[in-house]
């Protein structure tokens, strides 16, 4: 069985179109969300990508090409025959919004991944993974299965959430959105704020600094729009077991913490049942919003970028004292094993363990 490593990564989000610009923005306090109108008199804040030239598809393709190019320092991606995983919640619904009604949805759900693959001149097998907020982590888990089982030496995972009003309107209609800003674990948190992002993770069997040692995906349908404590426990324990780790081995948890009044509290209570004491926590959604299907890849890339770049996200709002937690103000000095959690719409709960395999 092969081990799985992170060979390269790329990111475009509200903070910037590549990692240096992302970290520079973070260092200077971040970028605020912008209002997106979904109907007359109704708008919601979104952490949006920087505007680009072209129509929706052209913007998608140029962003994907730019982000994937970041995954290799030489800019050479090789023969492009590895499996490609395109993870997204909204897929090409943004494109559909510009289509005439009778021309909409004329194709199928694989069309979006096909556009992404053509933008990269990709020759390998192309998979779509769409499980709402856990899409990208599930894509990483699937790609890791391929590499562990020696069915592939490399795989590319791309998480994509592009601009669209459909998703914003849908989350707004479900009364899950905050009217102003994302405040994970905040005393005045009012809901989540959506974000746009494109993130790429190049996985390989060849040793590199960051190793993906395990993960778990748990769908619990009892509460389709919320976090279930028992599922949080199961995903954390599943990821630890696959990694051969104990709770005390985890040095940092990247929490889900989307800013939901109820779900944030459930997540904390569940984490406290697995980890005693809690390791340092870090939250990224106040910086880039909830990037839904891209979140697993975008937050993994951002976290690794922060660690390698010596930048750390900070929050400018008071935390909810009743939760009894703090967010770390800097990277922990001992940082070997990191747990990344993503919880989502539809009862999806996914965890990944990332190990610093460096000397």
């Amino acid at each position, binding site marked *: 069985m092969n081990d799985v490593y992170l060979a390269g990564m790329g990111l475009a989000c509200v903070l910037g179109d590549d990692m240096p610009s992302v970290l520079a923005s973070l260092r200077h306090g971040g970028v605020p969300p912008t209002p997106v109108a*979904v*109907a*007359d008199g*109704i708008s919601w804040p979104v952490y949006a990508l920087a505007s680009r030239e072209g129509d929706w598809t052209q913007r998608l393709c140029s962003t994907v090409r730019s982000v994937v190019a970041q995954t290799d320092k030489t800019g050479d991606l090789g023969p492009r025959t590895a499996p490609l995983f395109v993870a997204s*919640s909204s897929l090409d*619904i943004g494109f*559909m*919004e510009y289509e005439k*009604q009778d021309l*909409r*949805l004329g194709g*199928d*759900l*694989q069309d979006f991944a*096909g556009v992404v693959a053509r933008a990269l001149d990709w020759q390998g*097998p*192309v*998979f*779509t*993974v*769409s*499980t*709402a*907020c*856990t899409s990208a982590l*599930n894509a990483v*888990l*699937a790609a*890791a*299965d*391929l590499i*562990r*089982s020696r*069915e592939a030496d490399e795989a590319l995972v791309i998480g994509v959430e592009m601009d669209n*009003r*459909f998703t914003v*309107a*849908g*989350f*707004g*209609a*479900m*009364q899950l959105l905050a009217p102003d800003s994302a405040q994970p674990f905040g005393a005045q948190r009012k809901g989540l704020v959506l974000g746009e992002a494109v993130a790429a993770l190049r996985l390989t069997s060849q040793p590199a600094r960051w190793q993906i040692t395990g993960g*778990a*995906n*748990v*769908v*619990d*349908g*009892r509460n*389709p*729009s919320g976090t279930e404590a028992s*599922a949080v426990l*199961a995903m954390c324990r599943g990821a630890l077991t696959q990694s051969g780790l104990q709770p005390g081995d985890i040095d940092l948890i990247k929490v889900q913490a989307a800013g939901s009044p109820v779900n944030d509290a459930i997540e904390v209570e569940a984490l406290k049942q697995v980890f005693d004491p809690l390791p340092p926590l870090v939250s990224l959604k106040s910086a880039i919003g909830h990037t839904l299907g891209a979140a697993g890849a975008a937050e993994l890339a951002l976290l690794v970028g922060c660690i390698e770049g010596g930048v750390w996200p900070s929050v400018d709002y008071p935390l909810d004292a009743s939760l009894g937690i703090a967010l770390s103000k800097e990277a922990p000095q001992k940082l070997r094993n990191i747990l990344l959690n993503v919880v*989502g*719409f*539809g*009862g*999806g709960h996914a965890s990944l363990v990332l190990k610093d395999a460096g000397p």
Partner: protein
Amino acid sequence: MSTWHTTAHFIAHPPPVDWRDDLARRIGRRPRRVGLWTELAMYGARCCLDAAGEAALPAGARIRVASQRGAWGATHAGLTQLDAGLPMPFTFMQSQPALMLAEVGRCLEWWGDASFALCRDAARTLQLAKLGAARDGLLFGIVEEERHGEPPRTEWWRLVPA
């Protein structure tokens, strides 16, 4: 784990006229607010498990679902509502594959590793689903709504490693 055994294969293409009543009888309730695509998935998954003689899907099993068109009707309706400035929460929820997975799990009284993935080569989707699966195996489904004269389809396999 390269050899797999099919313990049940259920296909409804199209489903029988009374399939919704059959589903309600099998799970002891009528699904509410879940959408046609999700209901088709629930029906096929439950029938397949019944055909396998399993009252419940083992906790360590995986569920994997593929579909070329997904919740086409709900997505189309959601876009129309968006055009009219009246997005409805249940229509939006019904358009999401994640909600289908949640409801399939719920109707099997199961929670665990469920995912929605597809590839132009359907055999690759199944092969991917098998990789890394535990000894409890896999419940794999392909679910399509009716469209352009093509009847609805819900086809499921219960697979376990030999």
